[in-house]
């Protein structure tokens, strides 16, 4: 009984002081596709992201995920409901190894105190190890497996976080500027990963400023300006939409 739209945002509002960062924003994110949220700086995209993932609380409106109202729930609850998010700034656990960073994302079961201490999860761990090694090899990071995350370069961190978010059980993957500041080579790698993700029928919602990348990768584009949605549609429709051009030129 899954809805065509995995995420529905209705009339979302959030103000900071006197600034209406999000001012009556409504969006429907289709399941199984890559949706891009774009707009000029200050249009409210990151605020919407933060509202969805529970980082901040909304002043008004509703967010519905998988038919469940998630507005104002706490971040860890929302994550466990199936939303996996990557931030603009790196949130890897810097003193843990790359391996441990990825392993911890699999589930919450293994870290339970008694399970851990009594060693009740050693068999399943073996399978997880395999998955992690394969994923890291596929992006040529296998050699960094046991190094502390703080030793990774910027691009390597981006990749590791993306992988970690994919390991984290999810129905929706939210990426906040996944290719900001990365080399062209890495950009293509990430585009490849996203295509693979879409190929498996997963849903992605991303924010990006790079128009070329976005219009090539996305199936569906939502454009925001001044806290509201001003246009939505396929990349081709958006490319020629006059309102969008106006918003960017202003």
């Amino acid at each position, binding site marked *: 009984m899954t809805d065509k739209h995995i995420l529905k945002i209705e009339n979302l509002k959030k103000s900071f002081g006197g600034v209406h960062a999000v001012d009556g924003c409504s969006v429907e994110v289709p399941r199984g596709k890559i949706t891009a949220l774009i707009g000029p700086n200050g249009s409210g995209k990151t605020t919407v992201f933060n509202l969805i993932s529970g980082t901040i609380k909304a002043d008004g409106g509703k967010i519905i995920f998988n038919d469940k109202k998630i507005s104002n729930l706490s*971040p*860890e609850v929302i994550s466990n409901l199936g939303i996996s998010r990557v931030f603009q700034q790196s949130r890897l656990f810097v003193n843990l190894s790359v391996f*441990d960073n990825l392993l*911890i994302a699999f589930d*919450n079961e293994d870290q339970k105190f008694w399970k*851990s*201490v009594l060693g009740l999860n050693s068999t399943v761990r073996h399978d997880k190890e395999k998955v992690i090694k394969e994923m890291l090899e596929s992006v040529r990071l296998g050699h960094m497996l046991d190094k502390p995350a703080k030793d990774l370069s910027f691009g390597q961190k981006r990749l590791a976080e993306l992988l970690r978010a994919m390991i984290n059980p999810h129905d929706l993957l939210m990426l906040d500027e996944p290719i900001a500041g990365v080399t062209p080579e890495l950009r293509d790698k990430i585009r490849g990963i996203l295509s693979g993700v879409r190929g498996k029928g997963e849903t992605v919602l991303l924010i990006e400023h790079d128009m070329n990348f976005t219009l090539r990768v996305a199936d569906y584009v939502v454009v925001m300006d001044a806290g509201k949605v001003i246009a939505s549609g396929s990349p081709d429709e958006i490319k020629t939409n006059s309102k969008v051009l106006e918003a960017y030129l202003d």
Partner: protein
Amino acid sequence: MISAYLIHILILICIYLILALSLQISVGYSGMLNLGHIAFYGVGAYTSTLLALAGTPFLLCLLAAGLVSAVVGFLLSLPTDKIKGDYLALITVGFSYIVYSLMLNLDGVTRGPLGIPGIPRPEIFGFKFDSNTSFLILSVVVTTLTYLAIKRIVDSPFGKLLEAVRDDEFGAKILGKNTFKAKSFSLIIASLFAGFAGSLYAHYITFIDPSSFSLMQIIPIISIVIVGGLTSLPGTVVATFVLVLIPEALRFVGLPSSILGPMRQIISSVILLVILIYKPKGFWGRVELE
């Protein structure tokens, strides 16, 4: 004569080591600067004492000391959801002071500043640990078990969760982790072992009074954790030996006892300051104190 002294020092080293290892869980692995750790130590000591004087067998006293301290540790964990960093450290300082103040003032229970004498040496299955040598063996066993238990905990996935919460609590929440529960468990475990240390101490010295559990007693313990290095359990062991033995050396300099006490405090504090300035990661630390 000297070997008796050595045995005494080794017993103290064991007790300090248990305290330092348990504090490592809080500070090194969980990133919580719990300067109130001594409160758990004191609660354990008084619990064990009062039970022992009421005729309870030693092993039960030891266990109860740990459990009661663990409850206190849980209480201290309650504000950690919203309060972190140096602010939390302040709260733990206040907490330590209040526990000390209660020890001093509830003289119906604790006999206040007079303290409680006559605590029996441990007796396990008929064997009485009267001699210091036998007590040393008991201490070494308890300390070794503590080390192994703590090592097991911090190397386990739960330990990695604690480190994740330490490195980026919000990042852990975004992965769906219940960070409050993790921090709570962390404090409960730390206080459990500190409680055991308190019980050992009480049954060794056979006399306790609030002065052993004042706020300032945290300085030697936190020094050990920092000098040894955050998250390094072997480092903690080495640091315990070094930081207990150095001030002890002062005994042989021949200072009058009224000066000896404060001089040792000064030396401990100066060592801590020097390490904090020049080597804040300690000697074997993996992690910075944030």
